[in-house]
């Protein structure tokens, strides 16, 4: 009986130590901070996702056609330069003949 008492007392003191730890202000503050951090990071992820979507579609509409067209213009210029140099050569041919 004494052993049971002792165990119960020890158990009560064990549970009370655990309860003391879990109900202490530091632990509760830590839990609150963790849930706040999770909430904020979720919101941050969502708003970053939204911002990335808006930036991505705006970039697609404004900048991608520009890059494509400038590239084509450059290709066209190079082709013209090539053709000009090609056409520049023949007049000397018949002159030689």
């Amino acid at each position, binding site marked *: 009986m004494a052993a049971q008492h002792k165990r119960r007392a020890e158990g009560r003191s064990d549970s009370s130590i655990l309860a003391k730890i879990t109900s202490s202000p530091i632990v509760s503050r830590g839990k609150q901070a963790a849930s706040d951090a999770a909430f904020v990071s979720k919101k941050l992820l969502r708003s970053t996702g939204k911002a990335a979507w*808006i930036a991505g*579609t705006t970039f697609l509409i*404004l900048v991608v056609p*520009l890059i494509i067209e400038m590239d084509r213009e450059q290709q*066209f210029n190079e082709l013209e330069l090539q053709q000009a140099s090609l056409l520049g050569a023949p007049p000397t041919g018949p002159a030689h003949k």
Partner: protein
Amino acid sequence: MAGIVPPGTTAVPADVSHTAHTKHDEKTDYMNLPCPIPYEELHREALMSLKPETFEGLRFDFTKGLNQKFSLSHSVSMGPTEIPSQSAETIKIPTSHYEFGANFIDPNLMLIGRVLTDGRLNARVKWDLTDNLTVKANAQLTNEPHMSHGMFNFDYKGKDFRSQFQLGNGALFGANYIQSVTPNLSLGGEVFWAGQHRKSGIGYAARYETDKMVATGQVANTGIVALSYVQKVSDKVSLATDFMYNYLSRDVTASVGYDYILRQCRLRGKIDSNGCTTSYLEERLNMGLNFILSAEIDHRKKDYKFGFGLTVG
């Protein structure tokens, strides 16, 4: 510009006299100012860059010239059209129509008419009576009652000023005047009176242009202040910005855009402070054959409009 003071006859070295002569040339001759551009085209460069005609759906235009002066045009357009609604939702209804048009263009006389399959008729007349006097008329007739309107404009062009008088249906009277003040700056004003809505207004405008840039400003007593600035960065590229503020309804809109005129295409893009970006591409596939792509994304209202088309002739 006529030289004001003839170069001095004293013995000066040739290069100094040349610089003296050019300095005198740069002194403005206030009697020989250039004619300003018409009042309604004040914002022309900014509008061309920042407000292309975006559309949604398919657009096909075919213009055939029968004569040197006369041409016919056929146009098919299919796509959703927005219906103005009270709620925040945009309601779009698919519509399609065919438009037939005839144009007669002469150095002195220009006649343009368009008929649509939904019963609308547009007509425009521009007649140069003399070198300085021009009469313009504009009419839009529809099937719905009280939605038709017409307007007459009488323009007088002086040596360095332009004036215009407007008459419209619904007792609309307007007049505007613009004057060149220096070779780069022109100032103007307008008044109008709308009898049907019992509204009248007065506005002032200024335009400063050089070879590389154009800056315009406009103020009206309807509460609108509109400023715009266009910079020509090179002969292919120009950038434009626009700022519009309504001091009565506290509405502000600013937009920035670019205009690339390349040999094979013309690309215009703009982004707005209302979260709206548009882009308009006209690509030349062949002689007389143009391919058009138009995109408009409104992030705030989540409204996306994309269109494509072909223009022949």
